């Protein structure tokens, strides 16, 4: 087996009295694409946000780069640079244009000189197909374009792993494809990716492993063929069949 990039052990998280994560164990290997599926409210986003400490988990361990992120003495900012995150709501910096969105973090955090940062930004923007929008105002782009800029922005920090939290949920159906295509390319290039998604076709086609979450626990995981073809757990079967029904309507 490949080297393990991220290892989560017995992660727990509550919001007040609401237990959202009830002991999650998960390993992500290098170059692997893992899709997390599950009903709304099952804790998928929370899990992703705990991984790069946007939420502080209550207990458990997150091993990354040989360090435990739950250890209060780790240099969070240094570790976060290596974990790219793409949000459902894009979260482009509204006060910056497209290229400045991409160069801000490399220049302020890694002190990359402007010329070099811009070169990398242009390269990544070209990869996501936005070469012509380099100097566009980030608030004036379409949703699909915004999300592709967000992906390019994360790539500019040269992360070891990318987390996607429902990257296409806020998009119109016609433009979901352009973002998914970019993600497929990324996967093909060997990027390690954890993707929370409701795009079952994408999960089937691209992922190496599918993880089904329900009410704060991982109920089942396996290859897409196993999960979609012959799910062992009743809940998984129920979720998938309901999902297919919804799709057909």
């Amino acid at each position, binding site marked *: 087996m490949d080297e393990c990039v991220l290892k989560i052990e017995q992660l727990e998280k509550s919001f007040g009295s609401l237990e959202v994560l009830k002991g999650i164990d998960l390993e992500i290997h290098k170059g692997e694409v893992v899709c997390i599926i599950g009903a709304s409210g099952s804790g998928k986003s929370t899990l992703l946000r705990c991984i*790069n400490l*946007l939420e*502080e988990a209550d207990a458990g361990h997150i091993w990354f780069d040989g360090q435990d992120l739950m250890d*209060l003495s780790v240099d*969070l*900012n*240094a*570790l*976060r*640079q*290596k*974990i*790219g*995150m793409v*949000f459902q*709501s*894009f*979260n*482009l*910096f*509204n*006060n*910056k244009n497209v290229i400045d969105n991409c160069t*801000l*973090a490399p220049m*302020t*955090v*890694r002190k990359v000189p402007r010329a070099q940062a811009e070169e990398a930004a242009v390269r990544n923007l070209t990869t996501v197909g936005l070469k012509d929008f380099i100097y566009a105002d980030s608030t004036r782009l379409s949703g699909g374009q915004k999300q592709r800029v*967000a992906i390019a*922005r*994360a790539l500019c*920090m040269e992360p070891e792993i990318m987390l996607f939290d429902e990257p296409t949920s806020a998009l119109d159906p016609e433009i979901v494809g352009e973002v998914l295509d970019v993600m497929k390319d990324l996967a093909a290039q060997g990027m390690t990716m954890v993707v929370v998604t409701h795009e079952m076709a994408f999960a089937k086609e691209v992922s190496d492993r599918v993880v089904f979450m329900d009410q704060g626990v991982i109920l089942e995981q396996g290859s897409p063929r196993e999960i979609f073809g012959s799910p062992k757990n009743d809940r998984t079967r129920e979720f998938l069949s309901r999902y297919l029904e919804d799709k057909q309507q």
Partner: protein
Amino acid sequence: MNPSAKGNFITRNHPYVFLGGSLIALLGLSLLYGEAHPLSFLTGNAPELLCRLILWAFLALSAVALVFKLFRGKSYRTCFLCREPMLTVSRLASYLVVLVCVLVFADRGIMQLIYTVQVCMEAKSNPQGFVPSMIYMSLKGKDMLLTGIWTTVRIALLGTAIAFVLAILMVFLRIQEPDKRDNDFVKALKWTANRFARFYIFVIRGTPMMVQALIFYYFGFNLFKRTGMTVTEINSVWSFFISGLCTVSLNSTAYLTEVLRGGIQAIDRGQTEAARSLGMSNWQSMIKVVFPQAVKNSIPAIGNEFIINIKDSSVLSVIGVMDLMYATKSVSGIYFRSLEIYCVAALLYLILTWLSSLLLRYLGKKLDTPVKGIPSSN
């Protein structure tokens, strides 16, 4: 013909021609029957009488229309008054009325004012009438009032600018929250900063600016006295103006800090989260991402603070700052008339705030930020 048919306001027939026109005619008539004055050009029988005739004629026509309306009810819309050519005739007649009234206003309004000013300039003593007295005192106290206006504008402008800079520093103290991952020293530092800012805002917002002005002034005065300076020396360093400016600056700092804090809180949390997820520190995401957006959104509120300072700096006259309020009081003391000169002061303040809000609106448009009207006091 439908009254709201095509064409612009001038070439189009509109409803309520008689109502609107007769109101204007009544206004004109009331001016016309007032006293004439030596500068009047609408005197003698011919012009004045003609004007009166035109206005009365229009009123008579309107009266006829009113009678028709009352007696015919719904079917009024179809009577001859609501058909061509009467529609066009009544419209043109209303334009004539407006024209006449403009003439009358120029004569009995503007020329009257010019005449009063002329009389006041030559007057030896404060005239009896209300408006003449206002004009007389404004003219005589012109220099004082102008200096007062200049001082008020300077204090408001400088005070708001200084307060803005201080508020930027203060809001950084205000938003410090100890984090689980900080060491104890940083935690203590953040806690202190936060409590200091809160306390400052609490005190400043909870006390009147007049009291603050007095405290700052005497505090500074006593401080300099300790160093052995004479009163004249102190007055040149810690002048009324300087201490007044300090008061306004420190006072506005508290309010602007809250404005900026509100601006920061209004920025979507996703902005910070995106910055943090890229490895930027809390400070970096604040400086590079959140703060520029918050300041931009706060610009209208900062402009409002400027307008508030124009008005509220009037309390500084209590420590002797020679602003517009102080000048007004002085003029009132010299000429023994209060109501008139305070009305002048109100008018001048109104002009200042109105002009400022126009200017701010213009700047806001250029900067593409939302704007509000003249704000209420703090």
